[in-house]
């Protein structure tokens, strides 16, 4: 018997605020987290802006581990996990640690260790390298392992590095772990830190906007790299009700698919993405008319936004025109493996607050993108069901469904 899975806590580390409240308030105000890049040298690039989390100090979020022995994505992840547990009213020392687990998504793992290693290799100084080049600390799995180590959770533990859909893949995995009874508590989300490999790579792909990210706008120029983390607390419904916990939303289900078409270009008819959306709705027992809001992947590149629009129409038919869809990447930039986790947090809170965030910087409609993108102003509306989309390199598509919790 599958168990129903609910979200009882939300933690966010973002360029527009730490914690659910601050993040949500900034999001509703349409604040931008894009600023000049400080953590790396961008002098050889044609643009110098990014969605960096400025002034983040890890120590307040740590009780057991030493934050200096891990990378920035892990530090973000631990902070978001601590916020999420606080938000859920859970003390990690009081939960059944053996049946509590962690599932995290990431695009890059902890790239700063690899970059320092590379600097040593290039300089011929590898024999003098210290812990800054420890490649065990580079590994993506350390993100979930560090969160679990910090919280003392000895159950299911995995990092799912499915690039820009990683957060959704991780939440889907956590959802299954609870639904099937393998786990009684999951911290699930995604984390990524700013890094020179994706910054350079997206630049070389011509996918980066120099100043402003304007998803679905006719004059959109691309995405802007960002960083951050979000973690959700997932529990079986019975546990949350027994604790008398506030339930932010229920996870209805998910759809995952692969284009099996091209590494960096989405399927030209949006087939794989539409399959993920359709499967997510079917698994959640709902149809297109039931969806109140879609959190778009919406990177701001010419091709993503056009193809996502096609895919939404393919999955939603006529209902596509009646369903608000927005991209918070207009404010945060693309936070990579954290993006869909942060967007899952948005869907969760939106259901509770009955408000949806805007697509900011929207000036001129694109005839090829003709849906309701909630331009420039957050909107009040009845949010009963929210869909969160994320698509990744390698053709991996994902769609999660969050529902207002009803007994």
């Amino acid at each position, binding site marked *: 018997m*599958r168990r129903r899975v609910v979200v009882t806590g939300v933690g966010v580390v973002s360029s527009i605020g730490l914690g659910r409240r601050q993040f949500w308030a900034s999001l509703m105000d349409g604040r931008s987290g894009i600023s000049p890049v400080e953590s790396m040298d961008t002098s*050889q*690039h044609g643009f110098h802006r990014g969605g960096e989390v400025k002034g983040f100090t890890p120590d307040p979020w740590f009780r057991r581990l030493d934050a200096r022995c891990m990378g920035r994505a892990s530090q973000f992840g631990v902070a978001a996990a601590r916020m999420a547990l606080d938000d859920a009213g859970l003390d990690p020392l009081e939960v059944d*640690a*053996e049946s509590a*687990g962690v599932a995290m998504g*990431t*695009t890059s*793992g902890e790239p700063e260790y*690899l970059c320092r*290693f*590379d600097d040593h*290799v*290039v300089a011929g100084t*590898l024999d003098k*390298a210290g812990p800054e080049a*420890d*490649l*065990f600390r580079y*590994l*993506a*799995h*350390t993100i*979930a*392992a560090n969160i*679990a*180590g910090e919280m003392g*959770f*000895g*159950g299911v*533990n*995995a990092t*799912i*590095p*499915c*690039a820009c859909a*990683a957060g959704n893949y991780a939440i889907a*995995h956590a959802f*299954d772990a609870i639904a*099937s009874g*393998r786990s009684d508590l999951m911290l699930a989300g995604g984390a990524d830190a700013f890094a*020179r*490999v*994706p910054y*350079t*790579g*997206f630049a*070389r*792909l011509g996918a980066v906007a120099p100043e402003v990210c304007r998803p679905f706008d006719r004059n959109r120029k691309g995405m802007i790299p960002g960083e951050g983390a979000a973690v959700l607390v997932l529990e079986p419904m019975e546990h949350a009700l027994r604790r008398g916990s506030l339930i932010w939303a229920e996870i209805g289900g998910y759809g*995952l*698919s*692969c*284009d*099996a078409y091209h*590494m960096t270009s989405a399927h030209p008819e949006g087939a*794989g993405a539409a399959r993920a959306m359709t499967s997510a709705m079917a698994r959640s027992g709902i149809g297109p008319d039931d969806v109140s809001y879609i959190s778009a992947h919406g990177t701001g590149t010419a091709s993503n936004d056009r193809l996502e629009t096609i895919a939404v129409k393919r999955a939603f038919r006529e209902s596509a025109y009646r369903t608000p869809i927005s991209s918070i990447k207009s404010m945060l930039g693309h936070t990579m493996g954290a993006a869909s986790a942060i967007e899952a947090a948005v869907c969760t809170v939106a259901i509770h607050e009955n408000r949806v965030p805007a697509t900011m910087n929207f000036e001129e409609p694109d005839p090829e993108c003709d849906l309701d993108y909630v331009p420039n102003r957050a909107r009040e509306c009845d949010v009963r069901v929210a869909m969160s989309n994320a698509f990744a*390199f*390698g*053709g*991996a598509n994902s769609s999660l469904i969050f529902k207002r919790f009803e007994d």
Partner: protein
Amino acid sequence: MNRVAITGMGIVSSLGDSQRDVHAAFCEGRSGLRPVTRFESTGVPCCLAGPVTDFDEKKYLPGRNLRPLDRLARLATSAVKLALEATGWTPELLRASEAGLALGTMFGAVHTVGEFDRGTVINGPGSASPLDFANTVLNAAAGQAAIWHGLTGINSTLTTGATAGLDAIGYATDLIRSGRAAVIVAGGVEEFSLEPVYAFERSGLLCGSHGDDPLPVPFHARRNGLAPGEGAAFVVLEDLDYALAGGRPVLAEIRGHASTLDTSGGRDGKLSVEAMARAIHIALRDAGCGPDEIDCLSASANGSVTADGREACAVACALGSRAARLPVTAVKSMLGDTLGASGAMQLIDLVETLRQGTLPGIPNLDEVDAGFPLPMAGPESRELDARIGLVNSVGAHGSCCSLVVALRK
């Protein structure tokens, strides 16, 4: 809950590219390990290792442009091909089945990412190739394999440390059990390159790092470290009824599995043993079988000074009196530790063991400590009438995974 069948297996390793050849090599005690000096110019000394030296991807992946695939993706895509081809999957049937892919890896594309990054450090960011960038994402190998074979279902990459391959198989098992998918190709891949060798060498975990005899001998009283390996191994997992309806052979069934974490990251011996024992215990419970029903064990042991002893204690702790009579093998003695691929390789060979009735020995295991809790571990291969096997996979930093596989009654 659906039952989960293994209907195909594919392996690319330092001991060959067919499970029969690899199993025969294991049973003869042949090793795929050799001294590797190619990193000396970077300051990483000679080590014993098991690279796939004669890997010819064109043999497995003919007729199409291989340029977009890096070595990691080529290894994975080749092993997936071998797993699929034995049972006659066509691209049409794979698409109609919405076959998925679950790929486990520890270091993943670290060499591709490193080369990309080092190139930009030396020649500036303008020199970077967008084609190479596509392979720097950690799910690139899974994406490339899906494109090559037309795998349009769930496409997931798992990283959990050295347990990733077995974890990916457990992950896929649950997706099939719950009806999310009918067919998933699952397993692991690891590339042998400067980066993992450097990481292990600098941590003093390689065999011979302290001037000892450089040979990885699991459970040996004087074991002194592991040898890094390379390769890929994948199994085709299917809903049992779906496989039978399609007329595909059921090689074995996945009966149960579990993953746990030692939250001390391997630093605390007691927590470490407890986490390993818990994985075995939950896997048996998940499989609905008792310790006495386990006929043999494929141990994770790789020659590591601390981890091997802990695993032996954990087996004894989880299986009780059965441990003293349990036939044990540890194939990392011959392949080296293929990390993210190792659990999948162990599983494939354990299925061969069950089907052929011969369990490989552990070469050079001529001395174990007094009171060693797995007394059946020894250097000789043995005939075995076995139906149910246990696979252990343990990472050096706290991840534990155990899986129960059985021949179909």
